[in-house]
């Protein structure tokens, strides 16, 4: 199939994020939860316009793609994420960029994921 011309492709923004959560989270659970919270905040129609996709997620960090005009809506729906797979979690957007490369270089490469102490402490409190 012929690829779409660059000028006709949808413009996107890439949000670099870190996940702060009690327990390790798999990518598929995170994707499911993000889509659920987006569709419950914005509704299915508006969510489809945001064009949210989780491109990569490993080691608590990842990149989410969205439409370049809907960054605000996407961020708001990411903020309403409270649990992944029943475990408490928070998604913290580190920054936005127009390309995956730049987002990775600028926000993810030198970023240390925050405080293992909270994770461990809340876990021990549960036990």
């Amino acid at each position: 199939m012929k690829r779409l011309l660059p000028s006709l492709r949808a413009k996107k923004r890439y949000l670099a994020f870190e996940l702060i959560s009690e327990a390790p989270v798999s990518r598929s659970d995170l994707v499911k939860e993000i889509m659920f919270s987006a569709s419950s905040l914005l509704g299915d129609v508006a969510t489809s316009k945001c064009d949210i996709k989780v491109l990569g997620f490993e080691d608590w960090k990842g990149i989410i793609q969205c439409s370049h005009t809907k960054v605000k809506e996407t961020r708001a729906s990411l903020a309403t994420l409270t649990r992944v797979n029943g475990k408490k979690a928070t998604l913290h957007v580190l920054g936005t960029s127009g390309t995956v490369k730049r987002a990775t270089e600028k926000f993810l490469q030198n970023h240390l994921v925050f405080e293992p102490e909270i994770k461990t402490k809340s876990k021990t409190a549960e036990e």
Partner: protein
Amino acid sequence: MGKPKFYDFCVHAVPDGENSVEQLAALSRHLGYSGIALANHSDKLPQSRPVLPSTHEFEVFNGIELVEENPSKLHSLIGKFRKSVDVLIVHGGSENVNRAALENPRVDILNHPAFDRSSGLNQVLAKAAAENDVSIGLTLRPFLHSRGPRRVRLLSDLRANLDLARKYGVSLVLSSGAMSCFDLRSPMETLALAEVCGLEENEALEAITIVPERIISRNRPGPGHIREGIEVLEEGDFF
């Protein structure tokens, strides 16, 4: 203009919430806040006053959220705590409490005023709030944790209050209302969520930067302050 300073003015720590002040402070600093106010509910205060881990870049303000159903008791509680705290929040939730809080100029913020079938404000209360400079607090926590009909209800209450606040010039304060570390959201996410919920961009920004700063400067008068409206600007030997 430099980068704006963001404040989160309603955070609950142990024993009210789940995490300690240090953990909350560390995370909110990491998220990009310049300060938080520890505002435990007055019925769940710790035995001793917690040590606030403040540094010169990040400050933890001493606050309290008063929970009291009886208006006259509420007024006496306000008098009791006013001197010792930087931020005095009243936990609203009935007509009498809302009214008592908004008509007392010593109160800084009224949180979640909504009660059954009412958004909690009306034109009389909004006018009183503007006169006494009591801000309406919008806490994010309920918006994050509810889904479906409950959140719809919260949003429509918020809209009704926003309309009143705009008409009468009541200031707003956006805060997380966090009970644990996982309820904290970074300033940018808070702003985005507030805008999706119906605030204007500049309103939301003001509610998280300028209004909190004003509350702090009002409650921590400078060295030359004598009383409201009278201030020594320049020391000098005039006699």
